[in-house]
């Protein structure tokens, strides 16, 4: 850049680049001292104000965030075609950073993945078992009525209350680590359980009684009817409901905030079930709260990523339903 634009100062130049550019250059020179004295072309992200300038969002004249020299450099760079706007893959592969131009979603995606995995492993078997019991085996009495009313009410409890429960019971009473995906997944699974139970019961109800009667007629026990015939037939419906529940859990923010799953994760290494983590929605929340203007576009991109995941999950649910739906 200096070669192209001999009449500018270093400081004016570096003000245009990302905050970590000087350090990165120094590291590169240290790694390969041979490049001293040569002209090497490197590509750097520009600083957020410059990005806005390049997109034409802020006026060029009388802009208080740039010195006149910087504007000159910018114009010269634009004239010589030195500015590029490639697709920003760093968004997916970098972890969080204080600099918006370097911040990425890798940590958030990993954290969300862990939490959802825990949530699925807990709520899927428990939800199916509870639904099968309530729908097929439970005697009709006051106690099972109580369970049913309970499940319906749990589905309508505000999510922030589940966060309070997680904070008081999982963190306060059981002493599990704060910010951990394990706790996040446990709280989310309590929230998804009612969804899965209700969906599973609907799917079980949709299996016609003739199937049950036929199986009972050839001498199967009640459990065998259930495990060998009804449950396999109801599985597509159950899976659809589960995926929709998982999609809800993926977008849930408030309970994760309360148990502290909005940690600052600058690197994806040593993330685990018990290590501090962040998740996609809480990452969106923290970025939306950041004062730097560069985070506005990052937040929007993160939201698109989140919505992309949700759309994919819902599409899978819809195709599952259409592929395996049977008319009896």
């Amino acid at each position, binding site marked *: 850049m200096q070669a192209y634009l001999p009449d500018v100062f270093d400081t004016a130049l570096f003000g245009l680049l990302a905050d970590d550019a000087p350090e990165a250059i120094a590291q590169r020179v240290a790694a390969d001292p041979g490049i001293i004295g040569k002209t090497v072309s490197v590509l750097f992200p520009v600083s957020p104000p410059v990005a806005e300038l390049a997109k034409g969002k802020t006026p060029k004249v009388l802009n208080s965030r740039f010195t006149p020299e910087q504007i000159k450099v910018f114009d010269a760079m634009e004239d010589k075609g030195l500015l590029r706007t490639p697709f920003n893959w760093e968004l997916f592969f970098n972890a969080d950073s204080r600099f918006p131009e370097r911040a990425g979603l890798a940590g958030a995606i990993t954290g969300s993945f862990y939490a959802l995995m825990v949530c699925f492993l807990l709520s899927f078997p428990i939800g199916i078992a509870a639904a099968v019991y309530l729908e097929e085996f439970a005697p009709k009495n006051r106690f099972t009525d109580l369970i049913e009313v309970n499940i319906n*009410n749990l589905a309508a409890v*505000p999510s922030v209350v589940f966060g309070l429960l997680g904070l008081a019971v999982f963190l306060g009473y059981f002493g599990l680590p704060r910010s951990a995906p394990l706790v996040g997944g446990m709280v989310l699974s309590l929230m998804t*359980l009612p969804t899965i139970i209700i969906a599973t019961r609907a799917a079980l109800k949709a299996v016609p009684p003739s199937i049950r009667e036929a199986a009972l007629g050839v001498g199967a026990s009640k459990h065998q009817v259930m495990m060998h015939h009804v449950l396999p037939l109801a599985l597509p419906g159950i899976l659809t409901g589960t995926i929709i529940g998982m999609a809800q859990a*993926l977008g849930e923010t408030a309970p994760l905030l309360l148990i502290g799953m909005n940690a600052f994760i600058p690197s994806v290494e040593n993330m685990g079930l018990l290590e501090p983590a962040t998740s996609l929605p809480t990452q969106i929340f923290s970025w939306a709260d950041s004062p730097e203007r560069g985070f506005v576009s990052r937040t929007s991109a993160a939201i698109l990523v989140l919505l992309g995941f949700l759309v994919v999950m819902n599409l899978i649910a819809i195709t599952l339903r259409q592929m395996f739906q049977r008319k009896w």
Partner: protein
Amino acid sequence: MIGYILVLLIVLAAVSYFFGRKRAVRAVEGREYLLHSRPNYHGAFVAAWVGIPSVLLVLVWILFQGSVIDNLLLWSLPPGTTDGLSVGQTSLLLSEIKSVAAGNLFSEPSLVVQEAAERYQRWEAIAQWAMVGVAFSVALLGLAIASRRISPDFRARHGAERILSGLMIACSLIAILTTLGIVLSLLIEALRFFDRVNPFEFFFGLNWEPQIPIREGQVTAGGAFGAIPVFAGTLLIALIAMAVATPIGLYSAIYLTEYAHPKVRAVIKPVLELLAGIPTVVYGFFAVLTVAPAMRQFGEMIGVPIAPNSALAAGAVMGIMIIPFISSLSDDAIAAVPRAMRDGSYAMGATKGETITKVLLPAALPGIMGGVLLAVSRAIGETMIVVMAAGIIATLTATRLSPVTTVTVQIVTLLIGDTEFDNPKTLAAFALGLVLFLVTLGLNILALHIVRKYREQYE
């Protein structure tokens, strides 16, 4: 470590499945028709006896190991060390011991702490190995008991099915445990809060300033916990949301059930329901970035100052979020009105519009009311939109244009980044949570009651 133990136990259970199977087959020398139950059931019975008690034991052990060791540690400290320490200071001492034990030395720890740290390390190791030992001996014991029972006459299928039923009952109890957990944790923490703050002040006080001086002599507000402004803000925002959502949701439901062509309906209905699937944090960002500035600009245009975090922006966006609720519940209610009532109205010569306003809506009103109540409870409990778009400072205001705060905003701001459980500031969040839980629960029960009662009328 614990993960490996659990995986190992599950592998052990899987192995013992095949063991039980084989043993059953061998008991009848390969003539399977002599067995009462098929070999699979013998295997499943043995696996359940091996896996379930040992895994349960490990889980219970994990839950209680921490607090047992903590208590042992406190008890083993030289007499007089913990005298006169508050709960918070004691837990601080414990975490100091633990961090010394983990090798993080920030400053020279005292002799007492060092000794305790050594004890802690030793006990942790002992507890871990004791758990492994006990868990595996329970598993082997289960194996011995179960495999001794295998014989041609043994009714393994009945045993396995009974175990499965028990597991299913336990799973359906989790829903009750969750509710119980919510109620108990909220109640206990809220009672601790009311120990420190007069309930009368909380429910009727007009001043909400939960900041408490952390150091002595720090200049802050004294910490006032009158929640009326918070409740008022919540109601205001919920009211605005309902003012947006009720007409739009109701009218779109009427249009969709009565006027829309089936093809149009097939497109619009999923799109409306899509709104319900968008995460609320996205709505919040939308409110902050788009709606609030637009409203401020509009306010400037007509000469009214609108604060950027006013109730108007948050309420309006929340209203959009709630539209699908109201529309789909009203849709159901209108569709449930019997065909005969519609036809009767047409036969009397009423127009379509008259039928809708004079016959359908009155008949569907209870269902619609139920839907609206459910939506109100949703609006009160909604968190992220208001956390991002509404204010934090509680001011008692009746205008929609100045910043307001809500119950959920206060819960989140009081608890973020703060884990100390013994100051009124964090406990206040639990008191607010209790109020929130009770109010939404009441609204839900009322709504379900109305809807159910109405449904029975036409059946």
